[in-house]
């Protein structure tokens, strides 16, 4: 009696492969480019600020997805824009995640009228 051996195609991945791992430096470059394009010579305007934040957040998220990293990554992007009027601002973050697979990157942009901070997180789903 011959036994049929079936090959299973399931791979229970709990780690991204090395080449599919999220690289903060790559993401940082892309985000810097977006900020330069969008905010070059931008002047503070209280009506346009909400629109800019939304556009930057959407574009950043699309770029991160387009980086082509492992499909099991979740992306989170936060954009903060404010009027550069000499007040003090401080931003800090803390995360509870898996050091091997997850990472974050941040990009700041300033001109004499506005300041902008983009924080992007990539979290792996097991």
């Amino acid at each position, binding site marked *: 009696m011959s036994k049929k051996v079936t090959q299973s195609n399931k791979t229970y991945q709990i780690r991204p492969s090395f080449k599919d791992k999220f690289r903060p430096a790559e993401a940082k470059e892309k985000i810097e480019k977006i900020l330069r394009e969008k905010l070059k010579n931008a002047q*503070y305007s*209280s009506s346009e*600020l*909400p629109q*800019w*934040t*939304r556009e*930057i*957040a*959407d574009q*950043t*998220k699309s770029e*991160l*997805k387009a980086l082509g990293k492992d499909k099991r990554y*979740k*992306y*989170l*992007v*936060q*954009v*903060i*824009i*404010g*009027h550069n*009027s*000499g*007040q*003090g*601002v*401080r*931003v*800090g*973050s*803390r*995360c*509870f*995640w*898996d050091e091997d697979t*997850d990472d*974050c990157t941040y990009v700041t942009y300033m001109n004499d009228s506005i300041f902008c901070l983009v*924080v992007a*997180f990539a*979290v792996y*789903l*097991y």
Partner: protein
Amino acid sequence: MPQDSVVFGHIRQECEQLIFNVCNKIFGPKEYNQTQVATLISQTNEESVKQLLNNNKNFKYMVVTTAMQKKGTAAADHLEMTADCYWNASTDGQSCVRWENDHMFVFVTLFACAL
């Protein structure tokens, strides 16, 4: 049971309350001082994550704290924050806690991704 929940929507209220209490405790009536505020933010982040984990271990938490000095003029006190996320909308979630005293605004954004 809230302790075992794997959906962020169920525990959102508790998390917001925890973070608000942490801000109250750590920032209190303090003034905005460049050097001091960096430590305060660090402490807030640490304490928040610790308490969130105590509450519910089924998530990866990302906490971003922003402190902005109050300058008193309408134009100066304008800050816009937007978050965009690519995740599982049924289990993951975010929440933003706004806290202020007479000298500064504190915003704590929490992202929680289900494990």
